């Protein structure tokens, strides 16, 4: 696994894992799987396995962080020590601190924070297994956890990355592509509002390639958005069925 592959795209134009350039990894989403959280979601995107939970609106601690006119959204992105090849120390790394911040800022535009003054909502994200694109999958799951907690939102936030490997712009990079490839552009999006709430990039892209990557990422977002809504509906349809049986 540590050997760097020479080519990331074969002669047929397929990627190391057999995907076409604009193909997503298989995505599986479940909503409402943690009984203690007010809302929760689990996502598998390729080998990524991520849990997200939302708590609140609830009393804010410490008290001096309370805001008189709105609720405070807090977010923690954290990777399990066993989630990557070499053990990751459980103490928050600088990367995790930055990601917690950008994920919070990706989710916040979707939430009506002014509806719950003087309260706090906490979103906890645990990456159980990481294989590239964890910040995007985390946002997709965290937004569902917020929705599952019944927090009023303008839209779901969905995220997906695009990037460049060899000379091709590709969708949804996995770990090796991310590390060996030329560039990675994670995008978070609210489809109903045409709003990009997270945009990052590293690597080198020409303006044309960048535009293509953003377009591709947004298309990927729209595909995952459909799965997100499906997952949310599935949970509540199950509840509906259970109630009918009880009656």
């Amino acid at each position, binding site marked *: 696994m540590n050997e760097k592959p020479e080519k990331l795209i074969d002669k047929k134009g397929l990627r190391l894992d057999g995907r076409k350039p604009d193909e997503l990894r298989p995505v599986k989403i479940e909503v409402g799987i943690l009984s203690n959280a007010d809302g929760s979601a689990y996502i598998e995107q390729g080998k990524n396995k991520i849990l997200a939970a939302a708590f609140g609106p609830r009393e804010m601690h410490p008290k001096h962080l309370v805001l008189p006119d709105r609720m405070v959204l807090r977010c923690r992105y954290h990777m399990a020590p066993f989630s990557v090849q070499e053990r990751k120390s459980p103490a928050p790394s600088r990367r995790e601190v*930055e990601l917690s*911040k950008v994920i919070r800022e990706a989710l916040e*535009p979707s939430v009506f924070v002014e509806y719950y003054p003087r309260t706090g909502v906490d979103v906890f994200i645990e990456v159980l297994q990481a294989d590239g694109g964890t910040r995007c999958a985390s946002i997709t799951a965290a937004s569902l956890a917020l929705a599952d907690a019944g927090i009023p939102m303008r839209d779901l936030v969905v995220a997906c990355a695009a990037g460049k490997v060899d000379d091709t712009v590709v969708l949804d990079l996995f770990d090796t592509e991310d590390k060996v490839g030329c560039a990675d552009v994670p995008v978070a999006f*609210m489809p109903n509002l045409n709003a990009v709430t997270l*945009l*990052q*990039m590293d690597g*080198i892209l*020409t303006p044309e390639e960048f*535009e293509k990557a953003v377009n591709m990422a947004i298309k990927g977002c729209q595909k995952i958005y459909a799965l997100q809504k499906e997952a949310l509906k599935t949970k509540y349809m199950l509840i509906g069925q259970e109630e009918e049986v009880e009656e």
Partner: protein
Amino acid sequence: MSSLVTRVRLQQIEKLIEKAKRLDGRGLGDYREIKIEQGLIEKAEGSARVLLGKTEVLVGTKVETGAPFPDTPNEGVLTVNAELVPLASPTFEPGPPDENSIELARIVDRGIRESKAIDTEKLCIEPGKKVFVVFVDIYVLNHDGNLIDASALAAVAALLNTKMPNYEVKDGEVVIKQGYTPLPMKSHPITVTIGKMNNRLIVDPWLEEEQVMDSRLSMAINDEGNICAIQKGGTGYFTHKQILEGMKLAQEKAAELRKKLDW
């Protein structure tokens, strides 16, 4: 800061933006005056101070020897750290780096790293064992907005000013010799931050504008005009169109600054 006064100011800023004007008289796409001074800290291997309007950032670099990362045995190491020292703003507090200073350091780091500004292969002394480690320490001295662009400029200016010690390897030991050579540089990334306020894009937001704007977009542009790092920040959003507009604006501004700085 008194919120009553600020509210009035904020409304004023918003009203002006509607008319494509700014409180300090700049146009929406204008930078504040930029002053760069290099080599003012003699004990550092390199240093630079950037004044962006009243925002003031000092960057010092140190070059030491250390071990390379296992996945890049032939390359030197770059470490960027930012300190929002309490004397720079009433809102900065002493203590370990918070998320703002970590984000700032990582944005500057990405701009330098991804544009391959430093020729890290030339920093290798003994593959897999010994390389030069370049520490870039960002010291914010006065916060008047747009710390990202000021810090990124100061970091590159300090790297351009950085001297590497001459050395020779004797019996597997690194012996430092007399004299210095300049740090090998390949690119000069320029980071441009764009703020979004009332659905308009502005360049180089200063402190009070930062409090009204709902989001920012920082783009690092390399010598060829390509994009090498991006970071969106703030609790608002950009539309798809605004991102492409922002990209064009950032490229224009980077080219303009590059000409002025002769990088």
